């Protein structure tokens, strides 16, 4: 069983609006399957769901998006955010997106603590992509993907 793309979009929009307000909409973006996330500088974060529904929820963000998200969450100027701040904020972002996707799936399940990296996400060889959402925010890309055991 995999989450519906519309549900993943709704969850992402809810989280985004809660964290960033109505600053600018998330705009769907057509990206061919198999295309790696194409931001020049990227941050990625993942959380694993285990139990009734096993899966991995991953968020990848362009660096400028990650920095603005962090600045808003910490109430700092964007140029005052450091890597530690960004890692913290991006981790909380995937925690919220992953937790809400988990709630849509059969349970009971447990959500892992997030893992965050500066750079594109790496995926284990024993999972396959079940769902992927490519978006633009203020012209910069972000991606939410869900992987499930192969």
């Amino acid at each position: 069983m995999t989450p519906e793309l519309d549900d993943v979009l709704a969850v992402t929009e809810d989280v985004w609006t809660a964290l960033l307000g109505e600053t600018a909409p998330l705009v769907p973006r057509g990206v061919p399957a198999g295309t790696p996330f194409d931001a020049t500088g990227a941050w990625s974060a993942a959380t694993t769901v285990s139990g009734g529904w096993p899966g991995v929820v991953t968020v990848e963000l362009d660096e400028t998006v990650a920095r603005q998200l962090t600045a808003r969450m910490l109430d700092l100027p964007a140029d005052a955010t450091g890597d530690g701040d960004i890692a913290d904020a991006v981790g909380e972002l995937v925690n919220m997106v992953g937790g809400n996707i988990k709630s849509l799936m059969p349970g009971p399940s447990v959500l892992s603590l997030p893992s965050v990296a500066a750079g594109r996400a790496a995926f284990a060889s024993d999972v396959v992509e079940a769902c992927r959402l490519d978006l633009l925010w203020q012209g910069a890309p972000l991606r939410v993907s869900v992987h499930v055991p192969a």
Partner: protein
Amino acid sequence: MRAMIIDDSRAMRSILRRIVSNLDFETTEAEHGQAALDLLQAGDVPDLCLVDWNMPVMDGYTFITQVRANPAWRDITLMMVTTESEQRQIVRALAAGAHEYVIKPFTPDAIVDKLALLGLLPEGHEVPA
């Protein structure tokens, strides 16, 4: 009134701090349940704890059970603020002694609403329409 914000995310603590500070709460912060328990044991006992569920070292559920096991802390109001939204887990947290439950993402008004329900909205602040 005083609030303790317990969440492993500094960004989330910052968001919650701004919300409750605007309501004139004084705040302290802890990055996991054990750090919060340490503060309580040191005598830093707030009126309200805002507690995440999923944290390293000690999770929010364990923290709540520890607080409720100590009669000296029975006046603390415990509000879970978490992405954990399975009904089974919500019931579990409330049964363990949480007074209220807020699911992330939330709006500031959602926190204010819950505080009003708990009778913790300071004088001069209004429930959102």
